[in-house]
Protein backbone atom coordinates (compact mmCIF):
# COMPACT_ATOMS: atom_id res chain seq x y z
CA UNK A 1 0.00 0.00 0.00
CA UNK A 2 2.79 2.40 0.91
CA UNK A 3 4.54 1.53 -2.31
CA UNK A 4 1.38 2.25 -4.28
CA UNK A 5 0.91 5.67 -2.76
CA UNK A 6 4.49 6.66 -3.28
CA UNK A 7 4.36 5.55 -6.92
CA UNK A 8 1.27 7.63 -7.42
CA UNK A 9 2.68 10.78 -5.90
CA UNK A 10 6.09 10.60 -7.52
CA UNK A 11 4.40 9.77 -10.82
CA UNK A 12 2.11 12.74 -10.44
CA UNK A 13 4.99 15.12 -9.88
CA UNK A 14 6.92 13.66 -12.79
CA UNK A 15 3.88 13.83 -15.01
CA UNK A 16 3.65 17.56 -14.49
CA UNK A 17 6.88 17.89 -16.46
CA UNK A 18 5.10 16.23 -19.37
CA UNK A 19 2.12 18.52 -18.97
CA UNK A 20 4.31 21.59 -19.06
CA UNK A 21 6.08 20.49 -22.22
CA UNK A 22 2.84 19.29 -23.80
CA UNK A 23 1.29 22.74 -23.33
CA UNK A 24 3.90 24.02 -25.77
CA UNK A 25 2.75 21.52 -28.37
CA UNK A 26 -0.87 22.30 -27.86
CA UNK A 27 -0.45 26.06 -28.21
CA UNK A 28 1.18 25.71 -31.60
CA UNK A 29 -1.25 23.07 -32.79
CA UNK A 30 -4.23 25.07 -31.60
CA UNK A 31 -3.46 28.09 -33.70
CA UNK A 32 -1.75 26.65 -36.73
CA UNK A 33 -2.43 22.93 -36.97
CA UNK A 34 1.30 22.24 -36.93
CA UNK A 35 2.76 19.44 -34.85
CA UNK A 36 6.07 20.84 -33.76
CA UNK A 37 8.48 17.93 -33.55
CA UNK A 38 11.32 20.20 -32.54
CA UNK A 39 9.69 21.08 -29.22
CA UNK A 40 11.72 18.56 -27.21
CA UNK A 41 14.93 19.86 -28.76
CA UNK A 42 13.92 23.43 -27.93
CA UNK A 43 13.37 22.44 -24.30
CA UNK A 44 16.84 20.90 -24.19
CA UNK A 45 18.44 23.82 -25.99
CA UNK A 46 16.91 26.20 -23.43
CA UNK A 47 18.34 24.03 -20.70
CA UNK A 48 21.80 24.31 -22.25
CA UNK A 49 21.38 28.06 -22.65
CA UNK A 50 20.45 28.31 -18.99
CA UNK A 51 23.55 26.29 -18.18
CA UNK A 52 25.60 28.65 -20.33
CA UNK A 53 24.35 31.76 -18.57
CA UNK A 54 24.20 30.47 -15.02
CA UNK A 55 27.30 28.25 -14.83
CA UNK A 56 29.64 29.08 -17.72
CA UNK A 57 29.11 32.83 -17.51
CA UNK A 58 28.48 32.71 -13.80
CA UNK A 59 25.58 35.15 -13.91
CA UNK A 60 23.24 35.43 -10.92
CA UNK A 61 20.39 32.94 -11.18
CA UNK A 62 17.68 35.55 -11.64
CA UNK A 63 19.52 37.17 -14.53
CA UNK A 64 20.27 33.79 -16.09
CA UNK A 65 16.60 32.84 -15.92
CA UNK A 66 15.56 36.14 -17.47
CA UNK A 67 18.09 35.75 -20.29
CA UNK A 68 16.98 32.19 -20.94
CA UNK A 69 13.34 33.26 -21.18
CA UNK A 70 14.32 36.08 -23.52
CA UNK A 71 16.27 33.58 -25.58
CA UNK A 72 13.20 31.32 -25.78
CA UNK A 73 10.96 34.15 -26.93
CA UNK A 74 13.50 35.29 -29.51
CA UNK A 75 14.00 31.75 -30.76
CA UNK A 76 10.26 31.27 -31.24
CA UNK A 77 9.96 34.58 -33.01
CA UNK A 78 12.83 33.88 -35.37
CA UNK A 79 11.72 30.34 -36.21
CA UNK A 80 8.33 31.73 -37.18
CA UNK A 81 9.58 34.78 -39.05
CA UNK A 82 12.58 33.32 -40.82
CA UNK A 83 11.40 29.82 -41.62
CA UNK A 84 7.64 29.42 -41.32
CA UNK A 85 6.38 32.76 -42.55
CA UNK A 86 7.18 31.82 -46.12
CA UNK A 87 5.19 28.63 -45.76
CA UNK A 88 1.86 30.16 -44.75
CA UNK A 89 -0.73 28.57 -46.97
CA UNK A 90 1.49 25.62 -47.87
CA UNK A 91 0.62 22.11 -46.78
CA UNK A 92 1.00 21.34 -43.10
CA UNK A 93 3.08 18.29 -43.96
CA UNK A 94 5.86 20.51 -45.32
CA UNK A 95 5.95 22.56 -42.16
CA UNK A 96 6.04 19.46 -39.97
CA UNK A 97 8.97 18.14 -41.97
CA UNK A 98 10.66 21.48 -41.45
CA UNK A 99 10.30 21.10 -37.67
CA UNK A 100 12.10 17.75 -37.95
CA UNK A 101 14.93 19.54 -39.73
CA UNK A 102 15.03 22.13 -36.97
CA UNK A 103 15.33 19.32 -34.42
CA UNK A 104 18.37 17.86 -36.15
CA UNK A 105 19.94 21.30 -36.51
CA UNK A 106 19.59 22.01 -32.80
CA UNK A 107 20.91 18.57 -31.91
CA UNK A 108 24.00 19.31 -33.94
CA UNK A 109 24.47 22.71 -32.36
CA UNK A 110 24.10 21.30 -28.86
CA UNK A 111 26.51 18.51 -29.59
CA UNK A 112 29.09 20.94 -30.89
CA UNK A 113 28.58 23.36 -28.06
CA UNK A 114 28.36 21.17 -25.01
CA UNK A 115 29.40 17.65 -25.97
CA UNK A 116 28.06 14.42 -24.62
CA UNK A 117 28.45 14.71 -20.86
CA UNK A 118 25.70 15.00 -18.35
CA UNK A 119 25.84 18.57 -17.08
CA UNK A 120 24.14 20.11 -14.14
CA UNK A 121 23.33 23.75 -13.63
CA UNK A 122 23.35 25.43 -10.24
CA UNK A 123 20.20 24.35 -8.38
CA UNK A 124 17.24 26.72 -8.40
CA UNK A 125 15.65 25.45 -5.26
CA UNK A 126 17.21 24.56 -1.96
CA UNK A 127 17.98 20.90 -1.65
CA UNK A 128 15.42 19.31 0.56
CA UNK A 129 12.36 17.20 0.61
CA UNK A 130 8.75 17.52 1.52
CA UNK A 131 7.41 14.56 3.39
CA UNK A 132 3.86 13.61 2.69
CA UNK A 133 1.95 11.21 4.91
CA UNK A 134 5.35 10.09 6.23
CA UNK A 135 5.75 7.69 3.33
CA UNK A 136 6.53 9.75 0.28
CA UNK A 137 9.31 12.23 -0.13
CA UNK A 138 9.29 14.81 -2.89
CA UNK A 139 12.13 17.18 -3.52
CA UNK A 140 11.42 20.90 -3.80
CA UNK A 141 12.06 21.17 -7.52
CA UNK A 142 9.35 18.62 -8.31
CA UNK A 143 6.93 20.51 -6.10
CA UNK A 144 7.85 23.69 -7.93
CA UNK A 145 7.17 21.95 -11.22
CA UNK A 146 3.75 20.94 -10.03
CA UNK A 147 2.80 24.42 -8.90
CA UNK A 148 4.20 26.14 -11.98
CA UNK A 149 2.40 23.83 -14.36
CA UNK A 150 -0.92 24.49 -12.71
CA UNK A 151 -0.27 28.23 -12.73
CA UNK A 152 0.63 28.21 -16.40
CA UNK A 153 -2.48 26.29 -17.29
CA UNK A 154 -4.61 28.83 -15.46
CA UNK A 155 -2.83 31.61 -17.33
CA UNK A 156 -3.46 29.94 -20.69
CA UNK A 157 -7.07 29.17 -19.89
CA UNK A 158 -7.58 32.89 -19.29
CA UNK A 159 -5.61 33.75 -22.41
CA UNK A 160 -7.75 31.55 -24.63
CA UNK A 161 -11.15 32.23 -23.18
CA UNK A 162 -11.02 35.82 -22.01
CA UNK A 163 -8.66 37.74 -24.24
CA UNK A 164 -8.82 39.06 -27.79
CA UNK A 165 -5.56 37.47 -28.88
CA UNK A 166 -6.86 34.13 -27.55
CA UNK A 167 -10.01 34.45 -29.61
CA UNK A 168 -7.92 35.34 -32.66
CA UNK A 169 -5.77 32.26 -32.04
CA UNK A 170 -8.78 29.98 -31.79
CA UNK A 171 -10.31 31.43 -34.94
CA UNK A 172 -7.04 31.12 -36.84
CA UNK A 173 -6.66 27.48 -35.91
CA UNK A 174 -10.20 26.75 -37.01
CA UNK A 175 -9.97 28.30 -40.48
CA UNK A 176 -6.94 30.37 -41.40
CA UNK A 177 -8.37 31.86 -44.56
CA UNK A 178 -11.69 32.76 -42.96
CA UNK A 179 -9.80 34.34 -40.06
CA UNK A 180 -7.90 36.47 -42.49
CA UNK A 181 -11.11 37.46 -44.23
CA UNK A 182 -12.51 38.96 -41.04
CA UNK A 183 -9.39 41.03 -40.64
CA UNK A 184 -7.37 38.96 -38.18
CA UNK A 185 -3.66 39.49 -38.70
CA UNK A 186 -2.68 35.87 -38.92
CA UNK A 187 1.04 36.57 -39.19
CA UNK A 188 0.90 38.29 -35.82
CA UNK A 189 -1.11 35.42 -34.39
CA UNK A 190 1.43 32.86 -35.61
CA UNK A 191 4.35 34.87 -34.27
CA UNK A 192 2.64 35.26 -30.88
CA UNK A 193 1.95 31.54 -30.81
CA UNK A 194 5.54 30.57 -31.40
CA UNK A 195 6.84 33.08 -28.88
CA UNK A 196 4.48 31.78 -26.21
CA UNK A 197 5.19 28.16 -27.01
CA UNK A 198 8.96 28.62 -26.90
CA UNK A 199 8.60 30.55 -23.65
CA UNK A 200 6.95 27.53 -22.07
CA UNK A 201 9.76 25.42 -23.52
CA UNK A 202 12.31 27.72 -21.89
CA UNK A 203 10.52 27.45 -18.54
CA UNK A 204 10.46 23.68 -18.99
CA UNK A 205 14.14 23.69 -19.88
CA UNK A 206 15.14 25.64 -16.79
CA UNK A 207 13.11 23.43 -14.50
CA UNK A 208 14.25 20.22 -16.15
CA UNK A 209 17.88 21.01 -15.39
CA UNK A 210 16.94 20.84 -11.74
CA UNK A 211 15.20 17.51 -11.93
CA UNK A 212 17.02 15.47 -14.52
CA UNK A 213 20.31 17.22 -15.33
CA UNK A 214 21.17 18.23 -18.88
CA UNK A 215 21.94 15.57 -21.47
CA UNK A 216 20.57 14.23 -24.70
CA UNK A 217 17.99 11.99 -23.06
CA UNK A 218 16.14 15.11 -21.97
CA UNK A 219 14.99 15.72 -25.55
CA UNK A 220 13.07 12.45 -25.25
CA UNK A 221 10.71 14.35 -23.00
CA UNK A 222 9.43 15.83 -26.22
CA UNK A 223 8.19 12.42 -27.32
CA UNK A 224 6.59 11.63 -23.98
CA UNK A 225 4.91 15.01 -24.05
CA UNK A 226 3.71 14.34 -27.55
CA UNK A 227 2.10 11.14 -26.33
CA UNK A 228 0.43 13.16 -23.58
CA UNK A 229 -0.75 15.71 -26.14
CA UNK A 230 -2.15 13.04 -28.44
CA UNK A 231 -3.90 11.14 -25.68
CA UNK A 232 -5.29 14.30 -24.13
CA UNK A 233 -6.39 15.74 -27.46
CA UNK A 234 -4.18 18.13 -29.39
CA UNK A 235 -6.44 21.15 -28.81
CA UNK A 236 -7.19 20.72 -25.17
CA UNK A 237 -5.39 22.48 -22.31
CA UNK A 238 -7.59 20.77 -19.71
CA UNK A 239 -6.58 17.53 -21.41
CA UNK A 240 -2.95 18.31 -20.69
CA UNK A 241 -3.54 19.04 -17.04
CA UNK A 242 -5.35 15.72 -16.58
CA UNK A 243 -3.37 13.42 -18.84
CA UNK A 244 0.17 14.60 -17.99
CA UNK A 245 0.07 13.60 -14.32
CA UNK A 246 -1.98 10.52 -15.17
CA UNK A 247 0.67 9.40 -17.62
CA UNK A 248 3.34 9.96 -14.98
CA UNK A 249 1.41 7.80 -12.55
CA UNK A 250 0.88 5.06 -15.13
CA UNK A 251 4.59 5.05 -15.91
CA UNK A 252 5.58 4.59 -12.33
CA UNK A 253 2.93 1.99 -11.64
CA UNK A 254 3.93 0.05 -14.74
CA UNK A 255 7.60 0.10 -13.92
CA UNK A 256 6.95 -0.56 -10.24
CA UNK A 257 4.76 -3.59 -10.68
CA UNK A 258 5.57 -5.00 -14.12
CA UNK A 259 9.30 -4.49 -14.55
CA UNK A 260 10.22 -7.46 -12.40
CA UNK A 261 8.09 -9.74 -14.56
CA UNK A 262 9.09 -8.53 -18.01
CA UNK A 263 12.66 -7.56 -17.35
CA UNK A 264 12.38 -3.77 -17.26
CA UNK A 265 11.65 -0.96 -19.69
CA UNK A 266 7.96 -0.67 -18.87
CA UNK A 267 8.36 2.95 -17.88
CA UNK A 268 9.13 3.96 -21.44
CA UNK A 269 6.77 1.48 -23.01
CA UNK A 270 3.58 2.06 -21.02
CA UNK A 271 2.69 5.51 -22.41
CA UNK A 272 2.88 4.28 -25.97
CA UNK A 273 0.68 1.27 -25.24
CA UNK A 274 -1.86 3.61 -23.71
CA UNK A 275 -1.59 5.88 -26.76
CA UNK A 276 -2.31 2.96 -29.05
CA UNK A 277 -5.48 2.02 -27.21
CA UNK A 278 -6.73 5.57 -26.82
CA UNK A 279 -6.28 6.33 -30.50
CA UNK A 280 -8.25 3.21 -31.38
CA UNK A 281 -11.21 4.35 -29.30
CA UNK A 282 -10.94 8.13 -29.53
CA UNK A 283 -8.87 9.19 -32.53
CA UNK A 284 -8.95 12.87 -31.51
CA UNK A 285 -7.73 12.20 -28.01
CA UNK A 286 -9.79 12.10 -24.87
CA UNK A 287 -10.49 15.84 -24.67
CA UNK A 288 -9.81 16.78 -28.29
CA UNK A 289 -12.08 18.67 -30.61
CA UNK A 290 -14.24 16.27 -32.46
CA UNK A 291 -13.93 17.11 -36.14
CA UNK A 292 -17.30 18.50 -36.99
CA UNK A 293 -18.56 17.25 -40.28
CA UNK A 294 -22.15 17.77 -41.19
CA UNK A 295 -23.61 15.47 -43.76
Amino acid at each position, binding site marked *: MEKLISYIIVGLANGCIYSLVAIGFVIIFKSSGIINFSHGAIVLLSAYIYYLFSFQFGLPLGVAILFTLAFGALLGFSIERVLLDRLIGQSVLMIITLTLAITELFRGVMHLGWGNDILSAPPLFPKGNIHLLKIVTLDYSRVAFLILTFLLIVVFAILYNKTTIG*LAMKATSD*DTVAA*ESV*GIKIRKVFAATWVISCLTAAIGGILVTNVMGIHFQVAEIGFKAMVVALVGGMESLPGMIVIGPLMGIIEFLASGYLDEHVGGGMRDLAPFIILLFVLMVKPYGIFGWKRIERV
Partner: protein
Amino acid sequence: MLKLINVEAKYHEVILVLRGVSFEVPKGHMVSILGANGAGKTTILRAISGTLLREDGKVTDGSIEFDGRRIDRLEPFSIAEGGILHVMEGRRIFSHLSVEENLLTGAIMHRNVRSKKFLEEIYAYFPLLRSVQKRVAGYLSGGEQQMVVIGRALMSRPRLLLLDEPSLGLAPLILKEIFEILKNINRREGISMLVVEQNAKIALDSTHYGYVLENGRIVLDAPSNKLKENEDIKEFYLGLSELGTRKSYRDFKHYSRRKRWL
Protein backbone atom coordinates in the same frame (compact mmCIF):
# COMPACT_ATOMS: atom_id res chain seq x y z
CA MET B 1 -17.20 53.61 -54.11
CA LEU B 2 -15.67 50.41 -55.46
CA LYS B 3 -14.31 50.57 -58.97
CA LEU B 4 -12.70 47.83 -61.02
CA ILE B 5 -10.92 48.95 -64.17
CA ASN B 6 -9.83 46.35 -66.71
CA VAL B 7 -8.92 43.84 -64.04
CA GLU B 8 -7.08 40.81 -65.25
CA ALA B 9 -6.37 37.97 -62.82
CA LYS B 10 -4.33 34.81 -63.14
CA TYR B 11 -3.87 31.72 -61.02
CA HIS B 12 -0.42 30.10 -60.83
CA GLU B 13 0.76 32.81 -63.22
CA VAL B 14 -0.72 31.04 -66.26
CA ILE B 15 -4.43 30.39 -65.84
CA LEU B 16 -6.18 33.52 -67.00
CA VAL B 17 -9.52 33.80 -65.26
CA LEU B 18 -10.52 37.45 -65.49
CA ARG B 19 -9.96 39.09 -68.86
CA GLY B 20 -10.42 42.77 -68.30
CA VAL B 21 -13.34 43.17 -65.95
CA SER B 22 -14.65 46.66 -65.26
CA PHE B 23 -17.56 47.55 -63.06
CA GLU B 24 -18.60 49.76 -60.23
CA VAL B 25 -20.45 49.49 -56.94
CA PRO B 26 -21.90 52.90 -56.02
CA LYS B 27 -22.27 53.86 -52.37
CA GLY B 28 -25.29 52.34 -50.69
CA HIS B 29 -26.15 50.13 -53.64
CA MET B 30 -26.62 46.40 -53.93
CA VAL B 31 -25.01 45.03 -57.06
CA SER B 32 -25.14 41.47 -58.29
CA ILE B 33 -22.87 39.53 -60.59
CA LEU B 34 -24.45 36.58 -62.36
CA GLY B 35 -22.63 33.85 -64.11
CA ALA B 36 -22.31 30.12 -64.59
CA ASN B 37 -19.76 27.88 -62.92
CA GLY B 38 -16.23 28.86 -63.80
CA ALA B 39 -17.15 32.27 -65.14
CA GLY B 40 -14.84 33.92 -62.61
CA LYS B 41 -17.34 35.26 -60.10
CA THR B 42 -15.53 34.03 -57.02
CA THR B 43 -12.22 35.20 -58.46
CA ILE B 44 -13.58 38.74 -58.72
CA LEU B 45 -14.43 38.75 -55.02
CA ARG B 46 -11.10 37.21 -54.10
CA ALA B 47 -9.30 39.84 -56.14
CA ILE B 48 -11.15 42.59 -54.32
CA SER B 49 -10.62 41.19 -50.83
CA GLY B 50 -7.02 40.21 -51.48
CA THR B 51 -7.55 36.54 -50.61
CA LEU B 52 -6.52 35.74 -54.18
CA LEU B 53 -2.96 35.86 -52.85
CA ARG B 54 -3.67 32.83 -50.68
CA GLU B 55 -4.79 30.79 -53.68
CA ASP B 56 -1.59 31.52 -55.59
CA GLY B 57 -3.44 34.03 -57.73
CA LYS B 58 -2.65 37.60 -58.66
CA VAL B 59 -4.18 40.66 -60.24
CA THR B 60 -1.92 41.02 -63.26
CA ASP B 61 -3.42 44.04 -64.94
CA GLY B 62 -5.86 46.86 -64.33
CA SER B 63 -6.68 48.35 -60.98
CA ILE B 64 -9.14 48.06 -58.11
CA GLU B 65 -10.03 51.25 -56.32
CA PHE B 66 -11.97 51.70 -53.11
CA ASP B 67 -12.90 55.28 -52.25
CA GLY B 68 -10.28 56.47 -54.69
CA ARG B 69 -7.50 54.40 -53.11
CA ARG B 70 -5.85 51.51 -54.96
CA ILE B 71 -6.26 48.30 -53.04
CA ASP B 72 -5.12 45.60 -55.47
CA ARG B 73 -1.68 45.23 -53.88
CA LEU B 74 -2.76 45.19 -50.23
CA GLU B 75 -2.73 42.30 -47.75
CA PRO B 76 -6.17 40.82 -46.98
CA PHE B 77 -6.29 42.18 -43.44
CA SER B 78 -5.64 45.76 -44.45
CA ILE B 79 -8.38 45.54 -47.06
CA ALA B 80 -10.69 44.26 -44.34
CA GLU B 81 -9.59 47.12 -42.11
CA GLY B 82 -10.36 49.51 -44.93
CA GLY B 83 -13.98 48.41 -44.73
CA ILE B 84 -14.42 45.61 -47.27
CA LEU B 85 -15.59 42.35 -45.76
CA HIS B 86 -15.60 39.16 -47.80
CA VAL B 87 -18.19 36.54 -46.87
CA MET B 88 -16.68 33.53 -48.51
CA GLU B 89 -18.41 30.79 -50.39
CA GLY B 90 -19.49 27.72 -48.48
CA ARG B 91 -20.19 29.27 -45.07
CA ARG B 92 -16.71 29.40 -43.61
CA ILE B 93 -17.73 29.57 -39.97
CA PHE B 94 -15.32 28.75 -37.17
CA SER B 95 -17.00 25.45 -36.55
CA HIS B 96 -15.50 24.67 -33.14
CA LEU B 97 -16.32 28.06 -31.65
CA SER B 98 -19.68 29.05 -30.24
CA VAL B 99 -22.01 31.31 -32.18
CA GLU B 100 -21.20 34.23 -29.93
CA GLU B 101 -17.45 33.69 -30.26
CA ASN B 102 -17.89 33.50 -34.02
CA LEU B 103 -19.61 36.85 -34.03
CA LEU B 104 -17.00 38.38 -31.73
CA THR B 105 -14.15 37.43 -34.04
CA GLY B 106 -15.61 39.95 -36.48
CA ALA B 107 -14.86 42.73 -34.00
CA ILE B 108 -11.26 41.70 -33.33
CA MET B 109 -9.81 44.18 -35.75
CA HIS B 110 -11.54 47.04 -33.97
CA ARG B 111 -10.20 45.86 -30.63
CA ASN B 112 -13.55 46.11 -28.91
CA VAL B 113 -14.25 42.42 -28.82
CA ARG B 114 -16.34 42.51 -25.70
CA SER B 115 -18.73 45.05 -27.11
CA LYS B 116 -22.18 43.89 -26.11
CA LYS B 117 -23.81 46.69 -28.07
CA PHE B 118 -22.61 45.37 -31.41
CA LEU B 119 -23.79 41.89 -30.53
CA GLU B 120 -27.24 43.19 -29.68
CA GLU B 121 -27.47 44.89 -33.06
CA ILE B 122 -26.62 41.65 -34.82
CA TYR B 123 -29.18 39.74 -32.78
CA ALA B 124 -31.74 42.38 -33.71
CA TYR B 125 -31.19 41.57 -37.39
CA PHE B 126 -30.97 37.82 -36.81
CA PRO B 127 -33.26 37.02 -33.89
CA LEU B 128 -32.75 33.33 -34.54
CA LEU B 129 -29.10 33.58 -33.51
CA ARG B 130 -29.92 34.88 -30.06
CA SER B 131 -31.49 31.58 -29.11
CA VAL B 132 -28.46 29.57 -30.23
CA GLN B 133 -25.69 31.93 -29.08
CA LYS B 134 -23.97 29.42 -26.80
CA ARG B 135 -24.15 26.50 -29.22
CA VAL B 136 -21.14 25.23 -31.14
CA ALA B 137 -21.45 26.78 -34.59
CA GLY B 138 -20.48 23.63 -36.50
CA TYR B 139 -23.70 21.92 -35.48
CA LEU B 140 -26.07 24.62 -36.70
CA SER B 141 -28.23 24.23 -39.78
CA GLY B 142 -27.04 25.67 -43.07
CA GLY B 143 -29.31 28.70 -42.85
CA GLU B 144 -28.21 29.49 -39.31
CA GLN B 145 -24.57 29.15 -40.32
CA GLN B 146 -25.09 31.56 -43.18
CA MET B 147 -26.59 34.02 -40.71
CA VAL B 148 -23.60 33.59 -38.40
CA VAL B 149 -21.19 34.32 -41.23
CA ILE B 150 -23.08 37.42 -42.34
CA GLY B 151 -23.43 38.56 -38.74
CA ARG B 152 -19.72 38.03 -38.18
CA ALA B 153 -18.95 40.21 -41.18
CA LEU B 154 -21.31 42.93 -39.92
CA MET B 155 -19.55 42.93 -36.55
CA SER B 156 -16.54 44.54 -38.19
CA ARG B 157 -18.67 47.45 -39.42
CA PRO B 158 -17.91 47.11 -43.10
CA ARG B 159 -18.81 49.72 -45.66
CA LEU B 160 -18.88 47.16 -48.45
CA LEU B 161 -19.95 43.55 -48.06
CA LEU B 162 -18.85 40.97 -50.62
CA LEU B 163 -21.19 37.98 -50.60
CA ASP B 164 -20.15 34.84 -52.41
CA GLU B 165 -23.16 32.69 -53.22
CA PRO B 166 -25.16 33.09 -50.06
CA SER B 167 -27.76 30.83 -51.69
CA LEU B 168 -25.49 27.79 -51.76
CA GLY B 169 -27.32 24.75 -50.42
CA LEU B 170 -30.13 26.65 -48.74
CA ALA B 171 -33.85 25.97 -48.88
CA PRO B 172 -35.80 28.59 -50.90
CA LEU B 173 -37.66 29.85 -47.85
CA ILE B 174 -34.52 30.41 -45.75
CA LEU B 175 -32.88 31.99 -48.74
CA LYS B 176 -35.69 34.49 -49.09
CA GLU B 177 -35.43 35.32 -45.41
CA ILE B 178 -31.68 35.89 -45.65
CA PHE B 179 -32.01 38.16 -48.66
CA GLU B 180 -34.78 40.10 -46.92
CA ILE B 181 -32.42 40.67 -44.01
CA LEU B 182 -29.62 41.72 -46.37
CA LYS B 183 -31.90 44.24 -48.07
CA ASN B 184 -32.94 45.49 -44.69
CA ILE B 185 -29.32 45.96 -43.59
CA ASN B 186 -28.52 47.71 -46.84
CA ARG B 187 -31.40 50.12 -46.36
CA ARG B 188 -30.87 50.87 -42.72
CA GLU B 189 -27.09 50.84 -42.34
CA GLY B 190 -26.28 52.03 -45.85
CA ILE B 191 -23.80 49.19 -46.32
CA SER B 192 -23.06 48.59 -50.00
CA MET B 193 -23.16 45.00 -51.17
CA LEU B 194 -21.72 43.04 -54.02
CA VAL B 195 -23.50 39.71 -54.39
CA VAL B 196 -22.24 36.93 -56.58
CA GLU B 197 -24.96 34.46 -57.41
CA GLN B 198 -26.00 31.55 -59.53
CA ASN B 199 -29.54 31.93 -58.38
CA ALA B 200 -30.35 34.73 -60.79
CA LYS B 201 -33.93 35.19 -59.70
CA ILE B 202 -33.29 36.02 -56.07
CA ALA B 203 -30.23 38.08 -56.97
CA LEU B 204 -32.09 40.23 -59.50
CA ASP B 205 -35.09 40.53 -57.22
CA SER B 206 -33.06 41.99 -54.39
CA THR B 207 -30.33 44.10 -56.00
CA HIS B 208 -30.32 47.44 -57.78
CA TYR B 209 -27.96 46.67 -60.59
CA GLY B 210 -26.70 43.51 -62.25
CA TYR B 211 -23.73 42.40 -64.29
CA VAL B 212 -23.49 39.19 -66.29
CA LEU B 213 -20.10 37.52 -66.35
CA GLU B 214 -19.09 34.92 -68.90
CA ASN B 215 -15.63 33.46 -69.41
CA GLY B 216 -14.04 36.19 -67.34
CA ARG B 217 -15.72 39.05 -69.19
CA ILE B 218 -18.65 41.25 -68.36
CA VAL B 219 -21.04 40.71 -71.26
CA LEU B 220 -24.11 42.56 -70.13
CA ASP B 221 -25.09 45.05 -67.48
CA ALA B 222 -28.27 46.91 -66.62
CA PRO B 223 -30.44 47.85 -63.67
CA SER B 224 -31.75 44.63 -62.16
CA ASN B 225 -35.39 45.14 -63.14
CA LYS B 226 -34.32 45.81 -66.75
CA LEU B 227 -32.08 42.79 -66.70
CA LYS B 228 -35.00 40.65 -65.61
CA GLU B 229 -36.87 41.65 -68.76
CA ASN B 230 -33.97 40.82 -71.06
CA GLU B 231 -34.84 37.90 -73.31
CA ASP B 232 -31.41 36.32 -73.02
CA ILE B 233 -31.40 36.53 -69.27
CA LYS B 234 -34.86 35.03 -69.15
CA GLU B 235 -33.79 32.20 -71.36
CA PHE B 236 -30.37 31.39 -69.97
CA TYR B 237 -30.52 32.49 -66.36
CA LEU B 238 -34.13 32.44 -65.31
CA GLY B 239 -35.13 29.37 -67.32
CA LEU B 240 -38.21 30.94 -68.90
CA SER B 241 -39.18 30.71 -72.54
CA GLU B 242 -40.86 33.53 -74.46
CA LEU B 243 -44.23 32.57 -73.17
CA GLY B 244 -43.13 33.09 -69.62
CA THR B 245 -43.65 29.44 -68.81
CA ARG B 246 -41.06 27.05 -67.54
CA LYS B 247 -39.05 25.45 -70.29
CA SER B 248 -39.51 21.77 -70.81
CA TYR B 249 -36.11 20.19 -71.08
CA ARG B 250 -37.55 17.41 -73.23
CA ASP B 251 -37.10 19.92 -76.03
CA PHE B 252 -33.57 20.54 -75.01
CA LYS B 253 -32.12 19.10 -78.21
CA HIS B 254 -33.97 21.63 -80.30
CA TYR B 255 -32.86 24.41 -78.10
CA SER B 256 -31.58 26.74 -80.70
CA ARG B 257 -31.55 30.22 -79.35
CA ARG B 258 -28.12 31.75 -79.50
CA LYS B 259 -26.82 34.15 -76.96
CA ARG B 260 -27.01 37.49 -78.67
CA TRP B 261 -23.93 38.90 -77.03
CA LEU B 262 -21.60 36.28 -78.44
